[in-house]
C-alpha cells in the first residue's frame, strides 16, 4: 500500500500526544487564569462589579493611565520613527553602540529603571533639587514621573519594529524620489511612511500594551493614591478588596485581548503582503 501520510511525518500517536500536551499546557497556564479573572470579578454580582469600576479611585486610575499612554506613546512613536530612520537609512560613527543603547530598557529590570529616576529626580539629587529651586517643579511622586518612567520602559518598541524593515528597504526609493524633485517632507510622507505603516502600527500596539500594563518602574516613582495607574490600583486593592482588584483587572485583560486581536490582524496583513512580494 502506498504511503499516504508522507515520509516526513511522525506517527499519528506522536503528533496527537504533542498537540494534546501543548493545548493542555496553554489551557492551564493562559486560558484558566484569564477565565478566573473574569469569574472572580463577577463573583459578587454585576452591581458590585459595576460599583468597583465606577468608584472614584478607579475612574481616577483610568484617567491617569489614559494620560500616561496619551503622552508616552505618541512621544515614543515620534522618537521611534526618528531613531529608526536615522539608524536604518544612514551610516555614522557609533551607530552600533546607539542600537545597543536603544535596547537598554529591555535589558534592565523595570524596578531598576524606576530607581534610576528616583536617583535622578528625588530629593538631594542634583537634577531634582535644581528643578525644585529654579522652577519649583516637583517630578518624583507625580504623574510626570509616571509618564517619564513609562516612556523609558516602552522606549524600544517602535524603533525595534521599524529598524529591520527600514534597513531591508534601503534608501533607493528615497533617492529616486529626490531625483524626481521631491523635498524632504514629501519624501517622508509619500515614500518612507507608507512603506513602514504596518510595522509602525504593530510597534504602536505593542508599545501601548506595555505602557498600560507597566508596573515595576511606575511603582517605584509613584506615590500611589491619586497618582495610581490601573496596574498600581490593582496592586493596592488586591489585599483589601479582592473583587475590586479583579474588576479593574478585567479592564486590563480586555485591553490585552484587543491588543492580541489587533496584533494578529496586522501580522496577517503583513504576511499576506510579503507573500505576494516574494
Amino acid at each position: 500500500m502506498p504511503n499516504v501520510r508522507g515520509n516526513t511525518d511522525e506517527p499519528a500517536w506522536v503528533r496527537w500526544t504533542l498537540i494534546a500536551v501543548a493545548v493542555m499546557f496553554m489551557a492551564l497556564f493562559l486560558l484558566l487564569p484569564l477565565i478566573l479573572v473574569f469569574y472572580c470579578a463577577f463573583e459578587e454580582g454585576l452591581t458590585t462589579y459595576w460599583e468597583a469600576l465606577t468608584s472614584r479611585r478607579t475612574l481616577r486610575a483610568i484617567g491617569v493611565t489614559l494620560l500616561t499612554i496619551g503622552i508616552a506613546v505618541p512621544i515614543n512613536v515620534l522618537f521611534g520613527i526618528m531613531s529608526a530612520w536615522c539608524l536604518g537609512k544612514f551610516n555614522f560613527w557609533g551607530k552600533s553602540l546607539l542600537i545597543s543603547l536603544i535596547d537598554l530598557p529591555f535589558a534592565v529590570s523595570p524596578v531598576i529603571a524606576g530607581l534610576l529616576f528616583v536617583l535622578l529626580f528625588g530629593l538631594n539629587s542634583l537634577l531634582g533639587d535644581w528643578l525644585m529651586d529654579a522652577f519649583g517643579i516637583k517630578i518624583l511622586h507625580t504623574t510626570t514621573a509616571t509618564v517619564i518612567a513609562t516612556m523609558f520602559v516602552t522606549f524600544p518598541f517602535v524603533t525595534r519594529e521599524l529598524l529591520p524593515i527600514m534597513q531591508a528597504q534601503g534608501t533607493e526609493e528615497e533617492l529616486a524620489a529626490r531625483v524626481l524633485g521631491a523635498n524632504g517632507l514629501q519624501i517622508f510622507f509619500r515614500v518612507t511612511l507608507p512603506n513602514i505603516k504596518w510595522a509602525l502600527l504593530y510597534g504602536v500596539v505593542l508599545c501601548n500594551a506595555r505602557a498600560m500594563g507597566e508596573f515595576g518602574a511606575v511603582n517605584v516613582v509613584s506615590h500611589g493614591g491619586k497618582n495610581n495607574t490601573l496596574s498600581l490600583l490593582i496592586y493596592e486593592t488586591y489585599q483589601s478588596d479582592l473583587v475590586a482588584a479583579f474588576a479593574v483587572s478585567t479592564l486590563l485583560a480586555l485591553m490585552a485581548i484587543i491588543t492580541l486581536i489587533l496584533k494578529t490582524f496586522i501580522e496577517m496583513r503583513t504576511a499576506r503582503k510579503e507573500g505576494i512580494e516574494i
Partner: protein
Amino acid sequence: MSIEVQNITKSFGNFLALNDVSLYIKSGELVALLGPSGSGKTTLLRIIAGLEQADPGSGPILFNNHNMENSKVGDRGVGFVFQHYALFRHMTVFENVAFGLRVRPRQLRPDNGEIRRRVLELLRLVQLDTQANRYPHQLSGGQRQRVALARALAVEPQVLLLDEPFGALDAKVRVELRQWLRRLHDEIHLTSVFVTHDQDEALELADRVAVMNAGKVEQFATPNEVFHKPATEFVMNFLGSVNKFRGQITDGKVRLGGQYIMDAPKDTEEAKLFVRPHELHISHEKTPNSFNLRAVVTRIHSAGARVRVELETHSGDPMTAEMTHARLSELKLENGQDVYITPGNIHVFGDDAHALEE
C-alpha cells in the same frame, strides 16, 4: 543637452573610484560607460546625476555649458533609472509615473487631468498602458524596468541616466529590451548615458562607448573603433577573448618569430601582440610569408552559430580560434590533430599598454 565632466576625482576612504576623469558627451548622444565592477562607471554616473559629490579640487560638471555644481539633484533636470528600479512599492504603476509631477510646487504642478494625460501617454510609450493599476510586485522584471523608465521620463528630463538598466533581467528579455531602448532613443533623442559591464550591450546600443578601468577612461570612441582599434591592452582584453603572443623588437622593428610585423616607435622595449579568435587562422599547410606556429587541437565547441576551437602550442600556451561551420568541415579538424596557426589582424601594444600605431 550636452554633458561635460572635467577632471573628476572621487575616493571612498582609501579607494580611488575615479581618477581625473574628463568626458564630453554630445547633445542627443547615447553613451555607454563600460567596465568591470569597481572601475568607477556607476560612481561617474551618480556624480553626473548629483547623487554623489566629486572630491574637492575636481573640475565642474556642465550641462549645456552650465555649471551644475550647486544645483541639487532634483533641480538638474535628470532622469535616473536605478539598477534595481527603486519603484515605489506601495504605489500603482500610474502613481509611480505620476510621482515626479505630483511633488512639484503648486504653481508648476499640472492639474489632475493633465497629469493623467501625460502619464497615460508615457505608459503607452513604454507599452504598459494596460498595467496602470497594477503594483510593482505584480510585474515582471522587464515591465518594472519600463515603469522606471517612464517614471524618469515623466519629469521631462534634459538628460537620461541609466544604471545597469538590464543587469537584473534574464538574457532573452535583455536583448529585446535593449533593442527597444535603442528605438526609443532614436524617437526621442534625449542625451542618455547608461552603465553596463556587458560589452555586447554597450557595442550594440551606444553611439559611443567609454571603456573604463580602475577609475580611468581607457578609450572613448564609437563601438566600431573600440572593437577594431582598441587604444589599450585593457580595452582589447575587455571587449572579447584574445590570443597573446610575445613579439621581439630588434633594429626598431617588431617581429613575431622572425616575421616582420611593423616598425616600432623609438624607445619601445616590449611588444605584446594580441589576436582575436576570429582572426586566428588554422590550416594544415604553412601559410607563406606569414608567421606560422605549430599547435594541437584540444577541444572543438561546435554547438553555436560559430565553431570555437581550442588549441595548445608546442610550448604549452593555450590558443582559441573561431570559424564558420563550413570552414570546420573543410578542414576536417579532430581532437589531437597537429595544425598550423597564423594570426590575421594583429594588435600590438607597447610598454605602457597603449596601442602602437603603424
